[in-house]
């Protein structure tokens, strides 16, 4: 039964299992071990890239919950990131709160804003909801711009934030941040996986697939939609707050509509409705500009205009969105699933006769 076991389920509880395949536990242990060993011998620049990926992962998990699982399309994710960053600014600069207070506070303020931005979802869906989140994005960014403009003379270059201090430990340098973010990303990933396979996740997926049917099943649309918005905004806000600490500077120019679109690109490339997809997409889209930059290193010098490279980096995200939507709508997660299936069935190429499923 070992091989058939991946598809054959004999009880409902089994369909809830996260790690079905015998090698998956081993694989995850290996990945975690490799992740723990990674900083040894790696350059600061490489660790910096990985840290950026981790920060993006947290934000992308948030958007994945909202769009990938609950089906509520949002173009306002950059605004949630901005809320986290500006909560951090306000609390550290004006009140001088410690790190361990600021990040949860950012989470709470993110959840509150998520609640407000989520309110239109009770009235609209689809296109109109997308437009209303777009409007919310501009409203929030406008507030942040006003705050930054009134902050002081130095604010045009951004507002600086000191390194975070946890107890007697000063979180500084790419390597220290790496372990901190690794722990957080692992925590949030496990949390999200568990969330989406239990009651809230099933409710969200029911809403995504058909909200009227979900309501008929007794799912409280109001509660679950707002919960998805709040959780999504909370994760984004935490990501924004941590990014502010990590880069030591906050400037409103960073939180454009393009950033929101980049997060949407992450979940499309990763694959809608998959936590793994959120992580893969975040890593893919974060590394993409750097990959393009290093590709240009191989080209003759005359081709390497700064604006060409920058334009290619911008355009690649759009090309990824279009190509994935057209040709691989379930994203990298589906590619990963196909690979797994291939090895499950090896050496056979055909779909095994399996009357218990599909």
């Amino acid at each position, binding site marked *: 039964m070992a091989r058939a076991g991946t598809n054959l389920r004999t009880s409902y509880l089994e369909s809830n299992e996260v790690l079905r395949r015998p090698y998956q536990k081993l694989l995850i242990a290996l990945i975690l071990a490799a992740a723990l060993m990674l900083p040894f011998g790696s350059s600061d620049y490489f660790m910096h890239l990985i840290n950026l990926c981790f920060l993006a992962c947290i934000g992308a998990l948030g958007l994945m919950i909202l*769009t990938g699982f609950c*089906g509520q*399309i949002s*173009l306002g994710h950059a605004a949630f990131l901005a809320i986290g960053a500006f909560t951090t600014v306000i609390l550290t600069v004006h009140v001088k709160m410690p790190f361990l207070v600021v990040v949860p506070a950012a989470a709470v303020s993110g959840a509150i804003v998520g609640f407000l931005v989520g309110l*239109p*979802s*009770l*009235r*609209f*869906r*689809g*296109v*109109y*909801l*997308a*437009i*209303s989140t*777009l*409007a*919310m*994005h*501009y*409203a929030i960014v*406008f507030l942040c*711009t006003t705050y930054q*403009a009134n902050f002081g003379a130095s604010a045009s270059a951004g507002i600086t934030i000191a390194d975070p201090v946890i107890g007697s430990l000063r979180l500084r340098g790419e390597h220290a941040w790496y372990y901190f973010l690794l722990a957080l990303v692992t925590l949030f990933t496990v949390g999200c996986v568990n969330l989406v396979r239990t009651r809230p996740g099933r409710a969200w997926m029911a809403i995504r697939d058909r*909200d009227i049917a979900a309501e008929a099943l007794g799912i409280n*649309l109001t509660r679950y939609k707002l919960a998805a918005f709040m959780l999504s905004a909370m994760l984004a806000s935490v990501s924004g707050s941590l990014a502010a600490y990590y880069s030591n500077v906050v400037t409103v120019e960073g939180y454009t509509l*393009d950033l929101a*679109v980049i997060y*949407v*690109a992450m979940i*499309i490339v990763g694959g809608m409705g998959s936590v793994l997809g959120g992580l893969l997409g975040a890593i893919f889209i974060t590394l993409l500009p750097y990959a393009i930059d290093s590709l240009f290193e191989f080209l003759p010098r005359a081709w390497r*205009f700064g*604006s*060409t490279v*920058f*334009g*290619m980096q*911008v*355009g*690649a*995200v*759009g*090309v*990824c*969105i*279009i190509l994935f*939507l*057209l040709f691989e*709508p379930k994203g990298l997660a589906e590619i990963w699933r196909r690979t797994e299936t291939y090895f499950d069935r090896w050496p056979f190429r055909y779909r095994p006769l399996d009357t218990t499923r599909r």
Partner: protein
Amino acid sequence: MRAEGIPPLFFRKSELVEFVATVIILTCTYALLAAGIVILYKAGRVVNFAHGEIAIVGGYVFYSSGLIAGSPWFAAVGAVVFSIVTGAFIYAAMMRRVVGEPFYVAILITVGIAIVLKAAIIVIWRAEQVTIDVGVAPAIRLAGGATLSYMDLASIVLTIAFFVALYLFFTFTRLGVQFRGTAENALLASQRGVNVNLVLSLAWIIAVAAATLSGVLYGGRAFLGSASVTIGLAGLTAALVGGLDSLRGAVVGAFIVALAQYLTVRLLDPVLSEALPFLILLVVMSVRPWGLFGTVEELDRV
């Protein structure tokens, strides 16, 4: 910026003429954009988030082909070719493939198109700020020192011509009736022998052409550049104010947005005018989301 010492709500006579001229031209720019968005929404229930980018790239194409050939007529040919190729390509290569997919797929593809076009502005035109100058005779002087260039006059005439042509097309031609049928129910229309692919690619071509015209007008009045793609969002707001499925509403919505924007710049704060379309958007979404002329049933309500 308003001049010192003038009560904000009173215009001097020259200002009044300038005010009327500017608002009309801004209305033309936004109405063309909004009309494209409305046509696409009606045809395929797609909201095109790339409309501003299409407009600006169209304007750049006009500018460049005019520069290469040295004649505004050639520039117009370039813009027409751009409209047909881009519109047909977007439909045939992308939109046709995602029929029947979840609604977000088509929208997000337009978002992807927006990014690609933005990148094209950076790569091809180096995001240079250019003002289209077709080199026709200078401006007409209006009462009180305000000026109205032939470009502005052309923009007003072309916009009116566009809307009249659209009206005649939808009302009196066979294809126009097929167009309306497709907008109402594509499946039924195709079963009655309407070539839905032709109609929908035509919708894209018309929308891109309108956007290009709008980009050309905007580039003649203000400038083309990476930042000017935000006119797409003003156009979207105009379409939404008028009602996403109403062409008549597009004109009215464009007028309201143009008026509000001009008054904000003049009387309140230029910075606020950037955020203004979205404030209007928020108000419309919360008060009357189907817009002034839109149908309530069309709204995708929960």
